[in-house]
């Protein structure tokens, strides 16, 4: 198990038998659908799987939503709040599961958080340092979908745009459509900048669900197969 930075120094060296696989991508990229499909397939193949995501820690997850609705939060406050939620899940769920030999499927990971912060003007190096306690995943995929296509998907699904996901808090444009597109373009750009450094594999998410799934599944199976042969 490798960390991005200083790691969690008070934990004894944990031996991990499991794998950490991350799926990244904006709302409407089909991320959650793919996570479900991959889970089903991996379980059918006999792997123990757990999923994790952002804003899901018992302790803090609900608090983030509440706080967002009560008062506008500063950008560093929000970044740290998400990091706390992430840390809680990492230590209580992800690390124990990896230790026990699970395949951990993460529906988003630190990269989304770093991209969001960066678009809001927080320095990339501070974000990187902040997540020095995060584990380096075995595989990271980014579902890339053009912003305009995303807009239609999100609108069809929810009938409305999420305030933060459309970057409304940073005042990119008075027009919500334009704001959404500009914001998502910014996020996509951050992912491109992170690709090499963090080993993120870009997957064309604009294709039909089944096609994307075959692509992802092939890569995952090949990775898990290589572990078995080792």
């Amino acid at each position, binding site marked *: 198990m490798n960390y991005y930075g200083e790691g969690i120094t008070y934990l004894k060296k944990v031996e991990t038998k499991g794998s950490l696989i991350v799926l990244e991508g904006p709302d409407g990229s089909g991320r959650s659908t793919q996570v479900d499909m991959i889970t089903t397939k991996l379980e059918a193949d006999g792997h123990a799987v757990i999923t994790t995501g952002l804003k899901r820690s018992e*302790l*803090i997850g609900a608090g983030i939503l509440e706080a967002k609705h009560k008062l506008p939060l*500063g950008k560093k*406050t929000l970044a*740290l709040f998400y*990091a706390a939620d992430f840390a809680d899940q990492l230590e209580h769920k992800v690390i124990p599961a990896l230790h026990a030999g699970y395949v951990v499927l993460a529906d988003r990971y630190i990269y989304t958080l770093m991209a969001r912060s960066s678009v809001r003007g927080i320095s990339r190096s501070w974000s990187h*340092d902040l997540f020095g306690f995060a584990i380096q995943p075995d595989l990271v995929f980014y579902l890339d979908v053009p912003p305009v296509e995303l807009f239609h998907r999100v609108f069809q699904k929810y009938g409305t745009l999420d305030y933060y996901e459309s970057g409304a808090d940073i005042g990119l444009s008075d027009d919500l459509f334009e704001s959404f597109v500009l914001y998502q373009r910014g996020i996509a750009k951050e992912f491109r900048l992170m690709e090499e450094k963090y080993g993120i594999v870009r997957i064309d998410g604009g294709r039909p669900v089944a096609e994307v799934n075959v692509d992802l599944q092939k890569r995952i199976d090949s990775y898990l197969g290589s572990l078995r042969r080792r």
Partner: protein
Amino acid sequence: MPRTGRKGRLIVVEGIDGSGKSTQLHLLDKWLRSIGVSVFFTEWNSSDVVKEITSKGKKKALLTPTTFCLLHATDFADRYERNISPLLEAGYFVLADRYIYTAFARDIVRGCNPTWVRKVYSFAIVPDAAFYFRVPPDVGMARILEGRPKLKYYEAGMDLNLSNDEYESYRIFQSRIVDQYESMVKKDGLIVIDGTLDIEKQQEMMRQRVRRLIPAAKPRVPILDQKEVALY
């Protein structure tokens, strides 16, 4: 740590529980206001947004050192972005009862990586004066226990498994915090005040240091307290 071209001044007090730092800051606050300086007071772990969630987690005793650190950093960032930073820009004297040094001491004692903790807080500016009230752990402990026989779980450092006895745990925890503060005195330029001296004497020393930070012409801005500012 960044130094902005701010007009205000940041004065912080640090020390273990029972070191007398809050009393001293209170007296400094009264004095500054009495001479017409615009003052804003803020204390550790007091942001409304974060408080509720932290207390829930603290009750369940579920916080790992990393989560503990990040939640306090969130609290700090909220106060920093909402009050401390803008008010310093506006020329206020910001008085902080505990600042990043508290986080450094506590998080490092809890086992977080020191370099990481400092990176997390790297956005915070260096105070114009950081007073450290030095008292032996036993003195602080005696003062705290005087009026309040029951210790809280995290306050006593029970999460560190130092001892099953919460008083013994508290004693060990506080002395480790003191070690951390002592190591920061030189590194971070903390101004040491002997917290066992008379209250008046300590206050005199503090005012002497702060007096030279007061600009000749006082900024003409209204005096607000934390509650009023929260309305903006």
